[in-house]
């Protein structure tokens, strides 16, 4: 009898355990959802993240490298010395590329679907403009890139569209967005300024058409583009890491001394002591110089630092993503290209007028002034003005390349300026569609700029 009781006790002990172990369902519950993260989000909340990715692309690492390649900055310390000598490899481009697609384009595609389902046309249009802005900058740097198949679950290894096709894809997005955003400037937590989405879309389109050498198309778009005082800025209004100006963050906060303007071409263009400076009887660059540079005792890291204390790259300086000046200079260049120098000069003078009210020191050129008296001189003056006005922007590097370095940026190492970015190592590792590249490809311009 006692034995039986013991047996029962032992069995009673084990039997429930087997029952517990066979219940797989309960045990999985605790790991079913991640308590530290969310399972889904709202398109309205997602758009800010995508826009920040756009800001990162146009103001962060890619913009700095473009700026070094375009002679606006000099690699001054540690790894940046190599960058200044154009010694970069595929791995150096991973982070900019990953940010562009995963934080930017991928989110835009999700937002478009969600917003469209909700009937929120403005949000859908804003996502389209963000996507176009991202892909246009990316294509200008890398040339052929995934666009039509990018960030789509049906294409785990997206194909690379030709640069011209990427541009067409983006212009289509912008055209579609223009019909959706009305006159709104909503959904812009990452941005600042009195812009409207419609004007932003038109200026972006004008930029794309200019790169495509469709000058009349670009004029038509730019005529609807950003108007005076309505520039489109990345917002940096809080003096905190994670919020402030990305150039400031790099130049002073995280990587003090890596990048300088000492011996840069932009400094030479503005420095009164330089033989190639752009000052003349109608142009006094003193105020803009002070806005752009810290020199001598004011420069903490080199002889000439980009102005991160109170100037263009201050911690709370908003960063120009797209502006009136660029829009007018697109018009100026396009009119010059189609032989209408008078109209061209009008737009150049509009930019100079804007500088006059902003900095002071600029008088209007007349067509007989030596700077603008021939088409060649006029074009050079426009492009130098654009190079200087777009300090720190990727577009300055685009202009240098698509005009075969018309303004004569000096080459730091070898015989040519870089013509493009290298495809990133992470993409080469995982996408067989990535074009094969060698180091010398760095110096081959992207298709549209050839």
């Amino acid at each position: 009898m006692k034995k039986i009781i013991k047996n029962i006790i032992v069995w009673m002990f084990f039997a429930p355990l087997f029952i517990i172990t066979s219940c797989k369902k309960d045990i999985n519950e605790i790991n079913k959802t991640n308590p530290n993260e969310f399972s889904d989000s709202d398109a309205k909340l997602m758009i800010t993240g995508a826009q920040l990715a756009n800001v990162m692309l146009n103001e962060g690492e890619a913009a700095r490298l473009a700026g070094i390649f375009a002679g606006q900055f000099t690699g001054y310390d540690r790894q940046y010395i190599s960058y200044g000598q154009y010694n970069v490899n595929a791995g150096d481009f991973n982070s900019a590329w990953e940010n562009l697609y995963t934080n930017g384009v991928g989110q835009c595609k999700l937002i478009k679907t969600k917003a469209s389902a909700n009937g929120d046309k403005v949000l859908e249009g804003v996502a389209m403009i963000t996507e176009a802005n991202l892909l246009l900058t990316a294509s200008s740097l890398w040339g052929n890139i995934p666009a039509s198949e990018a960030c789509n679950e049906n294409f785990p290894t997206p194909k690379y569209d030709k640069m011209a096709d990427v541009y067409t894809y983006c212009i289509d997005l912008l055209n579609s967005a223009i019909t959706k955003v009305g006159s709104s400037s909503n959904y812009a937590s990452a941005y600042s300024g009195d812009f409207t989405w419609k004007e932003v879309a038109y200026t972006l389109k004008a930029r794309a058409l200019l790169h495509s050498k469709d000058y009349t198309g670009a004029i038509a778009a730019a005529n609807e583009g950003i108007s005076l005082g309505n520039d489109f800025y990345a917002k940096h209004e809080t003096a905190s890491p994670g919020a402030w100006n990305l150039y400031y963050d790099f130049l002073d906060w995280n990587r003090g001394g890596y990048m300088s303007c000492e011996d840069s071409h932009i400094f030479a263009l503005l420095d009164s002591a330089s033989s190639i400076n752009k000052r003349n009887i109608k142009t006094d660059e003193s105020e803009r110089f002070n806005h752009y540079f810290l020199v001598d005792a004011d420069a903490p890291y080199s002889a000439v630092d980009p102005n991160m204390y109170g100037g263009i790259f201050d911690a709370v300086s908003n960063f120009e993503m797209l502006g009136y000046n660029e829009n007018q200079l697109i018009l100026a260049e396009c009119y010059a290209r189609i032989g209408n120098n008078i109209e061209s000069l009008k737009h150049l003078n509009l930019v100079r007028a804007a500088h006059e009210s902003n900095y002071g020191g600029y008088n209007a050129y007349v067509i007989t002034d030596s700077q603008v008296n021939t088409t060649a001189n006029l074009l050079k003056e426009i492009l130098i003005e654009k190079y200087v006005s777009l300090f720190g922007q990727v577009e300055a590097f685009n202009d240098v390349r698509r005009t075969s370095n018309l303004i004569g940026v000096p080459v730091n190492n070898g015989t040519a300026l870089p013509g493009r970015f290298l495809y990133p190592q992470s993409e080469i590792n995982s996408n067989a569609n990535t074009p094969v590249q060698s180091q010398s490809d760095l110096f081959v311009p992207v298709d549209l700029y050839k």
Partner: protein
Amino acid sequence: MINYLKLGLFALIIIALGNTINAQNKTNDTIVKKSDGIQLEEISITAIGEQKNSRKIGYSTSQINGKAVVSSGESGLIQGLSGKVSNLAITKNSGDPGAGGFIQIRGQSTITGNLQPLIVIDGVPMSNSSFGGGVDGVVQQSRLNDINPQDIANVEVLKGAAAAAVWGTRASNGVIIVTTKKGKYSDKKNNMNIELSSSFGLDFVNKEYEKQSIFGQGTGGKWKANTGGTWGDKIETRSGTDELNMNGAYFFTYNKENTLYRPILKKGDKTVYNDLNRDQVFRTGKTFNNNVSISSANEKSSVYFNLSDWNQEGILNGNSDYRRSTGRLNYTHNLNDKFKFSLNTFLSKIYSNRIQQGSNLDGLYLGYLRTSPDFNNTDYIGTYYNASGVAVFNSHRGYRNYMGSAAPTYNNPGWTLNKQTNTSDVSRIIITPEATWEWAKKSILTVRTGYDVSNDRRITYFPTLSAGSNANGAFTDEFIKQSELSFHAYNKNVIDVNNNLTINTTVGFLYTNRGIYNIGGSASQFILNNQDRFAFINSTSENKNPFNNIQNQINNRIYAITDIDYLDKIFFQLTAASEASSTFKSRFTYPSASLAYEFTKDILKGNAVLSYGKLRSSFGLVGVEPPAYLWSTNYINSSSASGWGETLDGSQFGGSIYRSSVQGNPDIKPEQKTELEFGTDLKFFKNKISLSASYYQNKTTGAIFAVDVPASSGFTSKWDNAATISNKGIEVELNLKVIDNQDNPDKLGLNIYGNISKNKNIVDDINGVNSIFLSGFTGTSSRAVAGQALGVFWGGKWETDASGNLVLDANGFKKAAATEGVLGDPNAKYRAGIGTNLSWKGFNLNVLFETSQGGQMWAGTYGVLNNFGITPETANEVTVTADEASKIKNYNGQTIDKLTTANADGSYTLRGNLEDFGGGKVLLDQSWYTGLGGGFGSVSQDYIKDASWFRLREISLNYNLPKSILNKLHIPGASIGFTGRNLLLWTKFPGVDPELNLTGTSNGRGLDYFTNPGTKSYIFSLKLNF
């Protein structure tokens, strides 16, 4: 297939239980059979914590006596095992006191997830995590080192899958079974063994960098203040004194002399401060270790009690210390023949302060090693007065801001050591109640629960004016709770079928619940700067960032083990475990089997040479459970950042939650590792020589990692069971009793022991992906690459043509290739340890050498010091003829005659090295080292170096005082001892001690980048028994 296995398992359980029930009817009493022939008393501990005669084991196992761990003089159990077991590789994080270590048994067999062996202490799994650790920050402890080595009776290393199968998804990296001491009967009057032991240790840095002392701070051959590089003028050519600006700004120090520093107009000082700067950084580390233990036992009960205190001051001359106080009570009580109870309790309190290291502007070695030889780091703090007399108190002065007018680009080492705080305050409790009940004859039920909980409060504090992004002050206060609750019940049953056949069955159930809870916050941009407070009130709202993270995992497992002893010479074991876990969806079953055959019972019986011989073979399947929360693609706070640190945080822009770039996978399964092992245990000449050898091969399939997917798909990675990794190798352990003095310990005894192991690892497949990042930097990393060993170095290479020749640029220099590739392998070709033990009349001398051969390491520090012109290599001077000077170019294409002026005889002398890459001689000078040729260039190929080492791991001498003296002192036992640890190291590696790794316990290996140095130690000990 799985269903069949399940069915088989349940059948096995039913049979086992059936046997259990039947056992009581048997009356055969012969439990212990005398083994004829040689009496072997070696006992091994099995995976579930049971004792088993080593003879009967069919898999490979290694034992280390607790004494050996103690005599190593290491604070932690992990490091104490170094060199003592074959195929057990231990990598230290650094020489910081209390630093964790990484244990690897038989090579790495998985990519992410848990890489380390499971530690089971007194039958209960314990947490051995190092929470945190990367390329910067401080070295974290390993929770395994919380245990007091004095408490350890025995450590058993189960290397193969078969031995460990009952632990299912946690056993794939092997299992280390730790058994703590039990109370022992004493023949003294009071039945008490009281032991007092104390030791005092001195620690020194074991390997340093040599810095050049010829050239000063500057660039292009000219002195320049605050610049990073040491490419300035030749120090000996200076005038002798600095010309100062006596009217402008100045820096007022807080030293006794209140030294003033003024702006230097012209550098003239010829002094080289390398030695002074070195002495600022290092000191003699000191350790006091005290233990008291009481042990007692009678027929009914036993008690082991221990209190210990380990108090260590590190070799880094500042806030570097480690204090561990522990208490343990192990109690057993036999109520009667049938019921036994035991309770092991342990508590540990650890307080330590660490020094920032690695790729970190606020790290120690970064600021110290880069400091120019002509700069004196001594005065790091003071008041800066600007030219108009405005004072900034507590200003920070370093070689990159010698006036202290703002935070220097790099910390002065004095600041890193003394002003920054990095504390860890840990409390840990492990409690293990256990009951056994012999409820039927030879059928014993064991029920054991365990609770292991540790709380760690960590503070990271950078005062205002620390270098880099901490310039306005930053601190983090966080709390980490880790816990593991386990419940384990098993029934053991012996059936003697007949005199020749005995069947042991064990059937058990194990439940574990693990949790990690991390909560804390960080704050930056301090409001008040003159007082160090670890308080969030010192920051404005937008500069406070709270965080929390929770993780919970539950596993349950049933298992059955059947042991069959046939004729006391054939031993067969069959194990099956079936496991469910909260981290994967369907139940998994893990079988294993082992067979041992003591062939000397049949052949070579009574052979004079071979006294014992056993052949063994085993097969096992174990798993690695997936980490928690891989099932779904999640939505996270939006954040864009680059590798340089600049960030845009959605929470600063009104909040933004978007899709994570990591794609989840609802079908994730445990990884499966199968292992096949063959081995033999042999003893020769009446056990004078014993030899144990094993060959194994294992293969992990479905290894989990975040598979790189093209970012253009919208994700950067996707969790998947994607990799296949294989290891194969051999391991041999040998013990030679050259002179056996077991009969009389006073006589001379000499023992030689050794082990050697070789492991070959290969990543067979990683799902078509080119490579997977494991740890390291954008430029150089440790990765998994298909067809290569796990952890290979990856980075920029030199461009070569189709036939492998270097492609040269117009000036004759090497060029960087566009794409990166494999650069080397951190895995050693073989590792070995050899030692000798000599005893005579109470003296005992133990010497242990250890070596690791054939592995490589990334000399990241050395490469960067080349960039800065600090290494002696970069301070070389060459003289060339006028003809050569007009031809030889530097990297910028300038010829030597343009770079310097001619000597009187027409020759040219200048700083640099002449090298021929295949296109004629070129000059390697600043332009080369600060560009492609140095550690900041995009090519790291040249800095992958051989990291083989050979070291005197341990030398210890103990003397047990003889009875004659003891009697006079009226104490029953006393001994004094000396241990030297790591005293000699031979290695060609140009960097830290190559057994260290910057990224510590991460899955990547072999990285040196301003890693805090390793140590050597001299330890004196005294032990008294009462």
